[in-house]
């Protein structure tokens, strides 16, 4: 194990093991605060709005959306890609950093994984409804059927996407749950409430921390970590092939898979930053999620932002260098200038330029500014997807087929609804699940105790 002196302590305040337990499990025992109930109320209202729009979409059809023959993919696909991107943080955090042996991950990974599970769940709503006849959803499964049997088309990225997203949701949820088992046991053994003992005992599944349990737990963590690392890269690469294999100007490029993956990690880390700044403040977890943790995330954001900028410039350069008139039109007359100028420049400034401010230590250590930047990044990432989905579809090869697109209230309500679901899920997580992986923090903390 590396010497933590170089990087400063990972857990501040020389905590004893018992202190770590009480600090982190405190919200589980405390009565819900006023703001928490208000937050839950607001997200419930948004959620209801979302359910209403889902009801309208199912009962009346996709015609209630603003999409048309030319712009067949509207807000639904933008939001789908946006949520999946946000959902990448969990795997990137817990698995990439696990494999890279970055010990500082252990204060953040639990929250990042929770975010992943909720965000991917939100994302899955959009393509499912976009199929139109959601009651025929099961057609997408390859099962012996009375239609031939007619199997699904394995060459279609849309089918890959279905497999990738559902596998991703299940795998990240299991990885998340596995990490929580020892912490549930901690609550089970410490609580005095009978209900809590029964509920957390149920989910702790009889965990006692014995040699056999820890040994298999570690083995399983390595297996899941090792194989799920592939998912960090594969899921969004597959999402990008939804675009890249179709012959649309601005989509049909080889840069798409890495460009999408980096974008996903970018928005995911930005969302982690947003949430962690709120969480540590509200729950006084500053000793666990320290300023140096946030500093590291900020540095990653700077680096990824540079890659994003490079990707944008590469796209623009190749459009010009190819000499292809449709590519040149899309990038120079439809994005940089033209109808969608505003959206392009919001994307460019928010993703490639504003995060560069964090090179300055003063800005990076001012959490209010960092908080605003992290939100701007996610705004920028939303506009990136808008740029990709809408501009290319609205004006492709045939000017007579050009059309514009404005979302209807149903589409906007569905987006707000997923934000409600996300907020609801995150609030429940904050109250009922230890927000920091207790046993991992204890493990990290002992190197500091040893040195004393």
């Amino acid at each position: 194990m590396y010497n933590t002196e170089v990087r400063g302590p990972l857990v501040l305040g020389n905590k004893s093991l018992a202190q770590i337990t009480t600090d982190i499990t405190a919200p589980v025992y405390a009565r819900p605060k006023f703001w928490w109930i208000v937050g839950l109320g607001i997200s419930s209202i948004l959620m209801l709005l979302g359910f209403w729009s889902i009801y309208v979409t199912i009962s009346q059809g996709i015609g209630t959306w603003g999409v048309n023959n030319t712009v067949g993919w509207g807000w639904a696909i933008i939001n789908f890609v946006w949520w999946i991107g946000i959902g990448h943080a969990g795997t990137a955090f817990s698995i990439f950093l696990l494999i890279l042996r970055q010990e500082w991950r252990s204060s953040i990974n639990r929250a990042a994984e929770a975010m992943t599970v909720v965000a991917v769940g939100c994302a899955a709503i959009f393509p499912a409804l976009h199929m139109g006849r959601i009651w025929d959803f099961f057609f997408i499964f390859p099962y012996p059927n009375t239609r031939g049997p007619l199997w699904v088309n394995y060459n279609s990225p849309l089918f890959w996407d279905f497999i990738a997203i559902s596998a991703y949701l299940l795998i990240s949820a299991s990885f998340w749950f596995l990490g929580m088992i020892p912490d549930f046991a901690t609550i089970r053994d410490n609580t005095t409430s009978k209900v809590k003992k029964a509920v957390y005992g149920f989910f702790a599944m009889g965990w006692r921390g014995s040699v056999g349990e820890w040994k298999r737990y570690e083995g399983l963590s390595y297996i899941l970590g090792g194989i799920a690392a592939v998912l960090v890269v594969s899921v969004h690469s597959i999402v990008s092939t939804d675009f890249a294999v179709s012959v649309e100007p601005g989509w049909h490029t080889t840069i798409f898979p890495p460009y999408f993956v980096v974008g996903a990690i970018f928005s995911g880390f930005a969302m982690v930053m947003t949430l962690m700044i709120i969480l540590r403040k509200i729950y006084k977890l500053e000793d666990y999620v320290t300023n140096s943790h946030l500093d590291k995330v900020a540095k990653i954001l700077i680096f990824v932002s540079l890659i994003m900028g490079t990707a944008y410039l590469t796209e623009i350069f190749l459009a010009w260098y190819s000499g292809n008139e449709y590519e040149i039109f899309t990038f120079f007359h439809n994005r940089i200038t033209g109808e969608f100028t505003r959206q392009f420049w919001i994307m460019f400034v928010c993703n490639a330029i504003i995060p560069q401010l964090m090179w300055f230590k003063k800005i990076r250590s001012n959490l209010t500014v960092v908080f605003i930047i992290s939100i701007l990044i996610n705004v920028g990432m939303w506009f990136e997807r808008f740029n990709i989905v809408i501009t290319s579809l609205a004006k492709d090869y045939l000017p007579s087929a050009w059309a514009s697109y404005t979302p209807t209230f149903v589409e906007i309500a569905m987006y707000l609804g997923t934000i409600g679901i996300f907020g609801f899920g995150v609030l429940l997580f904050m109250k009922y699940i230890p927000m920091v992986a207790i046993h991992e923090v204890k493990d990290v903390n002992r190197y500091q105790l040893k040195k004393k």
Partner: protein
Amino acid sequence: MDSEYLLGVFGDEETLLAAFRKMKEQEIEIEDVFTPYPVHEILEKQGRKSRITIVGWFYGFFATIGVLAFLIYTAVIDWPLNYGGKPSNAFPSFLVITIILTIFSITILSLFTFSWRANLWPSQEKPIYHDGATDDKFVILVNKEKADTGMAASVMKETGAIEVIEK
């Protein structure tokens, strides 16, 4: 009441390891050790082996073959369809699904294996010897029938156990 076990409760890792080493030296059989986080020296020397990583590899191996075979059977043998003149055995695009479903199978199967082998499933009724073992205590469990309890107790006390309980 007849007690079956002797529990040595320790407050930190160092004293636990000292007791553990000494007991191993004196060949006092340790039934189990309960810790709030994995202590690797104990995991290695307690003598229990876990083959879950090896099993995981085999799950992956068979899942890969299984998924590929299924894809080839359905798309090439059972009902080949002509998608724009592309070959029905589109091996490169099968690989995407194969990789994802292999990862998926390994995850699910090894989770169930873990649940079965580590004896963890919902509403388990396993004896919890000491409540602190998931919080801040380290517990060595000795079975009275298998080991000399007098010797074990004296080693535990000598190395700094907070308390030695009979249960």
